[in-house]
């Protein structure tokens, strides 16, 4: 019972510190970095309780769903054809890079592909596990992909507008 509370305390401290420093998306990034650093420093924080993971997703999903309106739907509809094309290109590039990674780093092809395909992390790991690819490698590289994108996104967006 102690570990989930420690996890929450560390995450909250990081979130508040980053928010106070005015880091964009600070609550998310601060909590993420603080917990990642504590985990890497071998603090035994146990597994993330389902309540945190799914609870966070449900709260955010609900908050975003509540902002849906006709204007959003209209924009989304107008955007979809080009966004789907771009998404297909992203998937193709991800697969090509995954294949290249497998060749360069001597992984088996399936592991390389599932490590870089931009799908949901849970789905990618599950499929890798199912066909006997390196699920740990897939999970770790998918984590690196997700966390580096979240970390870099504010800087990229900022750079884009300058």
């Amino acid at each position, binding site marked *: 019972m102690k570990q989930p509370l420690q996890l929450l305390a560390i995450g909250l401290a990081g979130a508040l510190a980053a928010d106070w420093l005015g880091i964009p*998306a600070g609550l998310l990034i601060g909590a993420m970095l603080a917990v990642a650093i504590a985990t890497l420093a071998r603090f035994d924080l146990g597994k993330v309780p389902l309540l945190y993971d799914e609870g966070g997703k449900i709260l955010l999903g609900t908050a975003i*769903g*509540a902002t*849906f309106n006709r204007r959003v739907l209209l924009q989304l509809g107008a955007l979809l054809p080009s966004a789907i094309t*771009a998404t297909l290109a*992203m998937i193709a590039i991800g697969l090509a*890079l995954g294949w290249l990674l497998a060749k360069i780093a001597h992984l088996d092809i399936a592991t390389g592909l599932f490590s870089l395909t931009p799908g949901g*992390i849970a789905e990618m790991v599950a499929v890798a596990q199912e066909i006997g690819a390196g699920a740990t490698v897939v999970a770790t590289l998918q984590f690196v992909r997700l966390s580096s994108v979240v970390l870099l996104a504010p800087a990229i*967006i900022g750079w884009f507008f300058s």
Partner: protein
Amino acid sequence: MLAHTVFLLLIGLAGAIVARRIKMPGGTFLGAMISTGIVSLLAPDSQPLPEVIRSVALVLLGISIGASVDREALLSLRRVLPWAAAMIGILIAASVGLGWVVYTHQALDVSAATILLGIMPGGASGLSAAAYDLGAEPSIVASLHSVRQFIVFGLLPLLLRWLAHPGWNKQKDRGE
């Protein structure tokens, strides 16, 4: 206000439970978003949830992303990581390029931040969460990522068949 918030949270929870039950790609996040999205579209007087809900969500999501770091796995991948980082860098650069093309070729005026966050190869919940603070439209970012997850999910059988083709997979024993 409180009744409205509790009502929407229950709708979100119901959507999440259904999504989990039918194993929908995007899972509880997308399930909650779709169910409350429908209700909000149908109810013209629907209001956004109080800000504290999303702040709590951001902290919880940050904790679960951060906690999924695995020290042993990272150390064992020392050799692979620099290459993987380079590939991820290329993938992100490609998303910025593609995002720019989509941004400059649109009929409406969706912001560049929204389009970029919607196309970047990150997680649906993480990037939608970041959208709030980066001046992007979280609902569009989340929807674009849901579309991406559905496309990948749809392409998986094709990919698996391709991988099953003899000669593609170097690993000899798959333990099946």
